[in-house]
C-alpha cells in the first residue's frame, strides 16, 4: 500500500514534469527519469515480495466461510422468488431479532418442503450468473 502511495506521487510528478517546458523543449526530464524508474522498480519488487511472502501461502478457513454463509440473512434473497419479497423480508427481520438462522426459521414455519428448502438455500446455486437468487436485492 505504501508503494502504491509512492507511485501515485511519482505519477503526479511525471504528469506535471511532462506538462512543463519552454516552447518545444521539456526541461524537467531528469526528475521524470528518476520517478518512472523508481515506480517500475518499487512495483516490481513489491509484487515479487507480495507473491512470495503472502499469496502463495494463503489458506482458506473453509469452516468459517461456510458458517458465515449459513448465519447470513442474505440467504433469504434466494427465497424471495419462491415465497415473495415481503415474506422473505419478514424472515430476515425475525432472524435479526432472534438470532436464529434463515434455515431454522423456515423449518419452524414450514415455509417450504424440506427438499425445496435445500434447493432454495443452496449457496452454490447463487454463485453463478442466472443462479438462484439472481434478481433479488
Amino acid at each position, binding site marked *: 500500500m505504501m508503494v502504491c502511495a509512492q507511485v501515485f506521487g511519482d505519477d503526479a510528478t511525471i504528469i506535471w514534469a511532462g506538462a512543463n517546458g519552454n516552447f518545444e523543449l521539456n526541461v524537467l526530464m*531528469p*526528475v521524470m527519469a528518476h520517478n518512472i524508474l523508481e515506480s517500475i522498480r518499487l512495483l516490481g519488487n513489491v*509484487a515479487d515480495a*507480495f507473491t512470495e511472502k503472502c499469496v502463495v501461502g494463503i489458506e482458506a478457513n473453509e469452516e468459517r466461510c461456510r458458517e458465515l454463509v449459513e448465519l447470513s440473512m442474505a440467504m433469504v434473497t434466494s427465497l424471495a422468488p419462491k415465497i415473495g419479497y415481503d415474506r422473505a423480508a419478514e424472515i430476515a427481520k425475525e432472524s435479526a431479532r432472534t438470532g436464529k438462522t434463515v434455515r431454522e426459521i423456515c423449518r419452524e414455519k414450514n415455509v417450504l418442503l424440506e427438499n425445496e428448502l435445500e434447493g432454495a438455500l443452496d449457496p452454490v446455486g447463487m454463485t453463478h450468473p442466472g443462479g438462484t437468487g439472481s434478481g433479488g436485492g
Partner: protein
Amino acid sequence: MKSVETRIEKDSMGEMAVPKDALYGASTQRAVLNFPISGYHFSRPFIRALGLIKWGAAQANHDLGLLDARRSALIVQAAEEVIEGKLDQHFPVDIFQTGSGTSTNTNANEVIANRCAQLAGKPIGSRDPVHPNDHVNMGQSSNDVIPSAIHMSAAEQLKDCLLPALEKLSSALSGKAKEFHHIIKIGRTHLMDATPVRLGQEFAGYAQQMEYGKIRAFASAHRHRIFRRTQSFRGARQQGRGGGSERSIKDDCHESIQDRQRYSLARQRAALRYWRNSITGDATGQFDHARESEPGDVRIDDDGVRASFRR
C-alpha cells in the same frame, strides 16, 4: 567533512578542482557543486542506457567514417564498462540538475573520455586521445541522449523487472482461484452481507486485475520504444545545427543498440546501413518515415518489439 585529494581539470569555462580518483572532469564537478539538492543519483538502468548510447554512437560514427578506428575502439571499451556498472561511482550528479539532463550527458562524456585516456596510457584530464565533446559526444545532443536513455531504461525495466513480477503474481492468484473454487463464502456489499460467492471467484478477480496491469505495462513499454525512435529526430532538428543529416543517422544508431541486445553484429550493421541509406542526400536532416526500405534490409519495427517481449 574530511578533505579529499584533488587534481585540477579544465573545461571551456576555466579550471576546477576535481577529486583525484574521479574519472569525471571539470564540467561534471561544476554540476556537483551547483546542485546539492537531494543526494539522488541516476540509477543503474539509466547509466546502462547512457553507456549503450555512447557505445552505439561510437560504432555508428566509425561506420560513417567520421571517427577513426582507434578512438572508436577505445570509446566502445570504456562504454562497455559503463554499461556493465563498473564506473557507476563516477556518476555523482544530482537528479535535480539542468532540466535537459545535460549535466549527466556531460558526466558520461567526461568519464568515458578519461577512461579512454587511462586505457591509452595517457593522463586523466588530458583529453588525449579522446575528447569528451568532439569524440564521445560526436553527433549528439543531450536532447537526443537523455530522452533516449529515459525511454530505453524504462522499457528495459518494464520488460525485465515489472512484467515478470506481474506475471508471477497473476499466476499465483490464478492458482489460488483454482484451489479455492469449491469454497463458498458470503459476498459483501458496502461491508454488509450480500449473496454468496466462491472464494475462488474473488481470487480470479484479483488475478484478472494483474492481467490488466500486465497489459498496461506492456503497452507502456511499447510506447517507450516508439517515442525513443521518433524523439531522437526531434532533438536533432531542434538544435538547428548544420550537418543535420549525419546527426539524424547517428540518432538512429540507437536502433543498433536494440540490435545489440537482440541480434547479431551483422544485422546491427545492416540496420545502420538501412537508416543511412534511407536519408541519403537529405541535407536538412528531415527523416521520411514513409520511405520504402531496401529489399533485404533489416526492419526494426514494432513487431520486433513485440517479438522481443514474447521471447
